[in-house]
């Protein structure tokens, strides 16, 4: 047991708190004004992308939609398909190089992460999310789609 010395109102020494504060603020500033924009991944649907194509130029996107007419060569691991928005109209060509997950089929939902290059969406990773309740998207269920994009791993 130690006894507490008689309490005296201590003199505040602000220096150390100031140093800490400066370090913290500096670190946060470094983050915000560093290349924070380049490490953000935006979640979009093909229709959303088309509305703001210029804004998303050069950014990493995570796009979700329906697989249409896939073409895959297992020897070169090259995959080409068209991604259709749940509005049934917007279509974006997709290119991906890599192994095809088991669940990847035509008319299935898929989420691709990558960047747009000359009108083609070049995927770095392909995410297939299958849920028990999954139905092929139809007009008017874009909310499902947003969820799919967010949940895909």
């Amino acid at each position, binding site marked *: *047991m*130690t*006894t*507490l*010395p008689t*309490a*005296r*109102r*201590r003199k505040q*020494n602000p220096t*150390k708190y100031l*140093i*800490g504060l400066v*370090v*913290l603020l500096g*670190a*946060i500033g*470094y*983050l915000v004004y*560093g*290349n*924070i924009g*380049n*490490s*953000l*991944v*935006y*979640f979009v649907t093909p229709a959303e992308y088309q509305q703001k194509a210029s804004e998303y130029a050069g950014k*990493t996107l*995570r796009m979700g939609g329906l697989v249409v007419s896939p073409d895959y060569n*297992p*020897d070169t*691991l090259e995959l080409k398909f068209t991604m259709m928005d749940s509005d049934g109209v917007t279509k974006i060509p997709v290119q991906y190089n*890599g*192994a*095809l*997950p*088991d*669940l990847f089929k035509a008319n299935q939902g898929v989420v691709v992460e990558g960047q747009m290059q000359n009108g083609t969406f070049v995927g770095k990773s392909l995410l297939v999310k*299958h849920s*028990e309740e999954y139905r092929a998207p139809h007009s008017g269920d874009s909310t499902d789609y*947003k969820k799919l*994009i*967010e*949940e895909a*791993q």
Partner: protein
Amino acid sequence: MTEFLGLGFSELGGYGTLALLLALGFVLYGLTMGVLGGIKNDPRFTESSRRSAWAVFLFVSVALFVLEYAIFKDDFSVRYVYRHSMTVSQPWVKFVTLWAALEGSILLWAWVLSLYTFLVSLSVRNDALRPWVMASMFFSLLFFVGINLTVASPFTPNINGATEGQGPNPLLQNHWMMAVHPVLLYLGFVGLSVPFAYAVAALITRKLGESWITQTRSWLLSAWMFLSAAIVAGGWWSYEILGWGGYWAWDPVENASFVPWLLATAFLHSIQIQERRRMLKTWNVYLIIGAYATTVLGTFLTRSGVVESVHAFGNGPIGPVFFGFFAVLMLIGIVLASVRAPLIRDDHTINRPLSREGAFLAGNIVFLTFAVMVVLGTLFPVLVEAIRNVRTSVGPPFFNQFAIPLGLLLLFLMGIGPMLPWQRQNNESLLKAMQIPVGTGVVVALMALLLGVRDIAVLLTLLLCAYNIAGLAKLTARAALERGGLHKTFELFQIHPRRYGAYVAHIGLVAIASGIAFSGAYKQEKELTLRLNQPQQVMGRTAVLKSLQIKDQLDKRSVEAHVVLDSEDTYARLNTYVNQPQQPVAMPFVKYHPLKDTYVTLLAYEQKENWATVRVIETPLVSWIWVGTLIMVLGSFISLQAPGTSVQTRTRPQEVTA
């Protein structure tokens, strides 16, 4: 069926809920008695509070046992068992199903907390802190047992009369690590509740001297040891199962366990300053409150769906409830600390930054900054959505931006701290002391440069790692020589287990740092499709697919690709569990080597056409991370052997200076 609380419980569900209700009753009783014992200063109340901790431990254990029993009996009238278990699972999978989902893991959390409360009740000193320590532990218990009876009840009945359950998540049936990682994590998380309880007791009783720190040191170090092991175990699981060859993705869940670790590590160092120099009293109180509160915050983040994560946990009312508890903890801590702040007077201030306490304090600031940045990064998508209304996620590059420089800074301070004496340092002797370590570091970095390492972060890491080792070796050798020769080194560990245990832990961390640097900078991977018996070149090695075999078992179908890399046999598998036919889980083949693992993942196959697509990954020094962690845990263990040293008012004149 048993009618109970208006719910038709099955027999087992009824027993479990009853046990939890009794536990809750004793929690409330213990809390009341603890507070009364504190206010009235009557040891009889306090004694009563202590004993009710035993009853709580007993009843929560009964509840845990009942749930485990229900899982093994395949009692699908209990909803938790129906949703997360199935008859055909292997026994070990059934055993870990207890914590495979939310309700069960909260029950495990409550059980670990009741175990700790029980142990505290046996070990807590008979002093003024005692009633309030017990009361604080009961306060945490009140929350966890309470939610186990309400929003996260594992014993909720299931009335559909199913004869087969939905089974556990495939990812959790795939590796024995799942039996270890959550338990370690909770031992670490919940362990932080003990120093927190002591801090609250010290604040209430105004006894903010060194007593509460001395009493909680072993608790803290044990919790820290478990937490460190748990975080790396999680990384190792990710490496062994997810097939991407990595072990850390800055996923919200990983961050949720990393933030408390950072704060606990800072606390582990700053309490030494308080013990030695009677400084930073307020700071320490805030740190432990922050460390404990962030364990709850992390759980909120991962369970509430606020932040998307690999650990796609279910949503529900549990998130807000946890957030409420986090807010309450922070509020209690901050209000108490603010009220008491004018009474806390540090006996000293740091008069020379170039001293051991100066280095510790600098380290503390870095740890705190690191923690704040990780929290910011984790919450950044939430902020972006709130401000700009776009959904985003933050990739690892974002975190690496600050994690690498801060990590290097910590490595630098870690090497300088032990070399400095407490209080005083004249600059000449520092320069002299640092000659050997810095020289060694520079030599090692130059050698690496000659050997072709061009990555600046890796070179700096190597430099700092070598300088750390050289410094610790120098200190140890000097101390041993003073005792009469290098053969006396072992004796040092017996005399000063605390100090030399810390050295060992530092060496473990150095190994981890080298592993992270090399594996991060020089990972290579390639995906290719192999046809049966047709050799292909991959990253300078020859790969041949020898066979593709499909094995059907009760709980899963397993596909195995036998691929020979040069002369090494690898067997990568793809498992499909009967309860989730749509979600195949890869079982990468990992062969550990000291310098470079052989790592093969089976991605896709077609038996009829005899081809398999595999990913071959080469990552240097990954094993160093696992070995380094073992060394770090060993170091903590050595440190724990120390008898609690009495607080020294003055540093001894013969303090070892480098």
